[in-house]
């Protein structure tokens, strides 16, 4: 870049151009987390529903797949942050929202017996909130659409018996997480 005298318009063009360059780097790779959790939670919900229907004694054992998913999720987040040549404010907020959501999930799941095991719709509603904020931060409408699907799922699930809530939960996650997740991945590429 040269240091010659610039006009006001050229200065404004530099500022606009550079701010645009910084914006393009927001939250790339965010689709990995949405897809990881989409597949894991959908599989756990549908697995729980199927195992309960066939009369398996411990259908909740399927939720153990969440443990390796947490490890993979943390490792990927740390690596992404470490290897990214630029850290945006949006990426920071994005991570904080999902960390907060994760803490709320743990609290809700710890007291599921006090909720008469109607925790699934609560989880869907909170996940919907996370997706809504994420979609707005990324300015990506399919993620906002995913949030609406999760909220509709939460309302439906609240009106169904606990066993059926797993089916609604699984389908809501498939549509509300995986569809926007794959569209986001396509957009990132």
């Amino acid at each position, binding site marked *: 870049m040269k240091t010659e005298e610039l006009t006001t318009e050229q200065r404004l063009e530099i500022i606009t151009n*550079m701010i645009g360059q910084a914006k393009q780097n927001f939250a790339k790779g965010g689709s990995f987390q949405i897809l990881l959790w989409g597949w894991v939670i959908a599989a756990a919900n549908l697995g729980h529903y199927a195992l309960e229907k066939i009369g398996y004694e411990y259908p909740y054992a399927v939720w153990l797949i969440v443990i390796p998913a947490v490890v993979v999720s943390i490792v990927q987040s740390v690596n992404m942050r470490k290897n990214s040549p630029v850290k945006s404010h949006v990426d920071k907020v994005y991570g904080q929202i999902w960390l907060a959501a994760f803490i709320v999930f743990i609290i809700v799941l710890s007291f599921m017996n006090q909720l008469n095991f109607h925790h699934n719709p609560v989880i869907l509603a909170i996940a919907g909130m996370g997706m809504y904020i994420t979609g707005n931060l990324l300015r990506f409408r399919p993620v906002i659409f995913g949030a609406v699907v999760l909220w509709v799922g939460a309302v439906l699930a609240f009106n169904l018996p606990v066993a059926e809530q797993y089916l609604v939960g699984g389908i809501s996650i498939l549509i509300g997480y995986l569809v926007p997740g794959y569209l986001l991945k396509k957009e990132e590429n």
Partner: protein
Amino acid sequence: MSQFQPLDPLLHSQLRLAVMSLLIGVDSAEFTFIKEKTGATSGNLSVQLDKLEQAGYIEIEKSFKGKRPLTTCRITKHGINAFETYVENLKKYIE
């Protein structure tokens, strides 16, 4: 003419202005990222970053990524104020 405030001479340089414009939109950025986005040479960029750091507009953190040295830059509050004032003054020139 009195409504026109003099523009900050430190942001008079095209490269320093580009660096500040880039850093205003991010939390932090590595040297290689700034170099790629501004299209500057390593030598020139180093000199201009030092000037911005000396003025207190940016913070430069030197560390290591594996065995390779890593330079990370971040805009300071003073730098944000200077940049905002610069843009405000610039606007007056086109109004």
